[in-house]
């Protein structure tokens, strides 16, 4: 192997690249440059606008642009972090399952939906009993516990019924199955709860109010804090406990893990349970922040969380969190920061486009994701 490398560099001693660049390479480079140029010009136009809305560059880019005030900008960033931390929580489930089984569980977005629905039912029951207002924190803890249990169970049953029989099959097969499971869960929700959109009870005024010091809505602070605590707990679980070590061992080499005496099946069940719990937690936070839930609630956040897992480097837990936050912030500030100064109209409806463009840009520049390791060819899905 070394020998052939040396030989090849003797043939072409000048260039580091041994392979001739193909048209595809040129196309990709052009795409990379133009995407990055678009972002850079947008940002520059934004900065020009902020300095002086009448300067020629800003006028050329978009004569109608108004720029952002400091408070608006901060508001967008905070919203982005709140939403991004939910994406991050969901992304952990995608990443962990990919880590141990090597396939993308597309039904994971629906586990999130199940968590949100469970929270909706429980919180409305609590609101009817008057506990939601009188003891909000206690109620919140209760609905979180119930929702985590239900979504974990959903994930575990899903593994047992749909994926375990397919262990050892080519990876494409559980992947397609997961899309089927996703439809099943959506339709189960329609059958059980009806197709109409349902809402969480209104949070108490003190949660809704903007915090006097930070000028941030209380609900967003709550979401960010709870998400941060969940991620810290998960990190501790995976990095420090014996079970966490077993999970990482199974992810790397299941055969040798079983040689250590690790029960591989039980470890995989635990991975699904933990991923489901994180999705359930995200479901509750979603309900607190947006209040309205419907059977398709899981779809878009699920796809974005999957993108977040890929952006961070699939299989890497810190990467999933970072990917979630960056997609959340990008889709929140991106439209007004980059697209508006460029004169694109109707930017507030382009959040999703920005989120997925971010995925494309990251993959163009770093195909393995921000924190991902380059996989040897045979390990790729």
């Amino acid at each position, binding site marked *: 192997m070394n020998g052939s490398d040396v030989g090849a560099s003797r043939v072409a001693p000048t260039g580091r690249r041994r392979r001739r660049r193909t048209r595809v390479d040129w196309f990709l480079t052009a795409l990379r440059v133009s995407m990055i140029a678009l972002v850079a010009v947008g940002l520059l136009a934004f900065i020009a606008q902020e300095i002086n809305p009448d300067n020629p560059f800003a006028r050329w880019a978009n004569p109608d642009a108004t720029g952002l005030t400091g408070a608006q900008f901060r508001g967008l960033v905070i919203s982005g972090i709140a939403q991004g931390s939910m994406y991050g929580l969901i992304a952990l489930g995608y990443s962990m399952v990919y880590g141990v089984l090597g396939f993308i569980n597309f039904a994971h977005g629906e586990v999130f939906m199940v968590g949100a629905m469970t929270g909706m039912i429980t919180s409305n029951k609590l609101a009817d009993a008057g506990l939601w207002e009188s003891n909000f924190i206690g109620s919140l803890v209760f609905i979180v516990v119930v929702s985590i249990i239900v979504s974990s169970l959903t994930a575990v049953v899903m593994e047992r019924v749909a994926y375990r029989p397919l262990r050892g099959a080519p990876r494409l097969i559980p992947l397609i199955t997961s899309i089927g499971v996703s439809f099943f869960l959506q339709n189960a929700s329609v059958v059980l709860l009806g197709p109409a959109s349902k809402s969480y009870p209104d949070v108490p005024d003190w949660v809704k109010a903007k915090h006097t010091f930070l000028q941030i809505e209380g609900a967003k602070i709550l979401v960010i804090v709870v998400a941060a605590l969940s991620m810290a707990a998960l990190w501790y679980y995976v990095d420090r406990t014996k079970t966490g*070590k077993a999970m990482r061992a199974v992810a790397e080499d299941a055969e040798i893990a079983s040689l250590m005496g690790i029960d591989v099946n039980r470890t995989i069940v635990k991975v699904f349970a933990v991923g489901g719990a994180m999705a359930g937690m995200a479901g509750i936070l979603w309900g607190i922040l947006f209040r309205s839930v419907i059977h398709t609630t899981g779809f878009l956040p699920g796809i974005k969380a999957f993108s977040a897992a890929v952006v961070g480097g699939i299989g890497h837990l810190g990467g999933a969190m970072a990917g979630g936050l960056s997609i959340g912030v990008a889709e929140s500030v991106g439209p007004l920061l980059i697209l508006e100064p460029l004169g694109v109209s109707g930017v507030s409806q382009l959040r999703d486009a920005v989120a997925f463009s971010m995925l494309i840009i990251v993959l163009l520049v770093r195909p393995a994701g921000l924190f991902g390791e380059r996989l040897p060819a045979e390990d790729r899905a």
Partner: protein
Amino acid sequence: MSSADSGTASSAERVPLLEMRKVNAHYGAVHALRDVDLSIYEGELVCLLGGNASGKSTTLKTLLGMLKPTSGEVVLDGEVVNDRPTSYRVARGITMVPENRRLFKRLTVRENLQLGAYLRKDSDAIAADMERVYELFPRVKERLAQKAGTLSGGEQQMVAIGRALMSQPRVLLMDEPSMGLAPALVQQNFELISQIHEAGMTVFMVEQNANMALGIADRGWVLQTGRVVLDDTAEALLANPALRTSYLGGGKGNDEGETAADDAG
């Protein structure tokens, strides 16, 4: 320390620690093991020799429960364990250092060693065994916080042996300890093996490099297309001209066989 004679002389009255009785095993339609009889006694260092595809790895997989024999018995310390999973056998004192070491490369050296003791609950004894591994391999202690994948081949071999020792095995299986290592490291590796054997460990190794393996082993078997063709003490095997010719079997061309035997010698 323990000579070949003591191993064979006492085999009549002692119960083997690990045994295969008339074991047959199949991979789909391939008959990989044919009536294989092996017995490993406490305190021995024994080796199973054979060329490519002779059934060496299959033997290890069958002993560990990763492959179920189609007939015959695998006996661990007097108990038939055919239907027991790997984890049960590991808990009963059998473990393996896999071919090419196969450490958990993204985990730290410390975590790799801790995973070796996964089934154990006695934290004091685990800590004591950690110390024994450091004593055996001082280099490992310096690398504890490092990711196992960043270690050199020789260091990885030490961690792989250390990880296996952490399960407090009564018999240590070694799959091709010379595989994928530079010649100097192969030598060092065989020294390590005889070192842990002298410390009292029962070792069963599977090897292609006959001269190296027999140089430290008490007894050995030669496997050819799934059948045991030679069973003798190490000295007798080394002196036996059939050892070389047995590597030629299995439809291989003469040239290839000769080079394999030359490599072994």
